[in-house]
């Protein structure tokens, strides 16, 4: 069975104000493209309520690092109570959205995702030894890489939404 270890706990980025929904998703897609991740939307919900539109996207980004380890990021994007508004930008009219955005991300590392070390008890025993004493430096390198990737995405989203605080 696949073993999944949480490397970065769920962090929710919240924003309220003007935004362009497609561009927010575009930031995530661009990050996935740059970092070699596959971006998949597991579910995509769009509904219209009296108080505004509601969009919820549950997605995941994954990258096979080796035959044994895989980087995985769970993603949940919510656009809540948003409405279309027209703003003046450099003398030109532009349609944007106004509402609430919540983006939660969690970073994981998956080991033995092909389930090849689980078929026989002695394979499993060997896997534990291999994982603990032989492969551990490489895995810790992968963990660092995944943490950096997820942190980069969080920073990209925050800077896109103008949430970065300078001290």
């Amino acid at each position, binding site marked *: 069975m696949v073993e999944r270890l949480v490397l970065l706990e769920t962090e929710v980025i919240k924003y309220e104000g003007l935004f362009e*929904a*497609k561009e927010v998703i575009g930031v995530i897609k661009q990050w996935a493209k740059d970092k070699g991740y596959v971006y*998949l939307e597991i*579910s*995509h919900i*769009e509904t219209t309520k009296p108080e505004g539109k509601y969009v919820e996207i549950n997605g995941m980004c994954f990258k096979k690092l080796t035959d044994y380890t895989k980087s995985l990021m769970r993603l949940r994007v919510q656009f809540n109570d948003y409405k279309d508004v027209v703003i003046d930008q450099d003398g030109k009219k532009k349609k944007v959205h106004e509402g609430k955005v919540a983006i939660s991300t969690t970073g994981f590392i998956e080991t033995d995702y092909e389930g090849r070390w689980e078929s026989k008890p002695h394979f499993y025993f060997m896997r534990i030894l291999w994982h603990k004493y032989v492969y551990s430096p490489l895995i810790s390198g992968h963990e660092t890489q995944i943490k950096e990737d997820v942190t980069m995405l969080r920073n990209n989203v925050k800077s896109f939404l103008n949430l970065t605080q300078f001290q």
Partner: protein
Amino acid sequence: MGEYSIPLQIIKHRGFFDHEKLIQTLQGWFPENGYDPAVDLKQKPSMLRLGHDFLYKIKGNKKVTDYIKFYVEVSLKEYNVQGVELIQDGKKIKTSEAEILIEVSAKQEADWQKKFAGKGEFIKWLGEILEKRILKYRINDYYEDKLIAEVLGLCGLLRDTMGQEV
């Protein structure tokens, strides 16, 4: 021999949409992308009207190579379908309103012609070497990515047809 599925894609929509256009888009995507039209009874599109609910299922397969075959299945469910008239830019438009649930599942099959199956232990072993060793990355990376890209394209097209914004 082996089947490799990709995660199920779910699209939900509540609001206005063009029913006919959605069905046409769905039906058109399969031949446009090289998928064989449904042949046997199980693969024929099935439609069922249950009061104001609408269920539709379509399956397609594509022979990518002599060894690899893609399968895509779309299940479309429309609940509480109601015909409505909208006034858009001063014009009256007939459209529908419903709750929609679309599920897209896809998988790839290796050795779909069963060339290596049931022909003695040696041939079976050769088939396993081919699938698990020689073509492993071709199947798990290249063809999987290709299938994911096709399915994401279909999902995007369906979302655009329903008028989803994101």
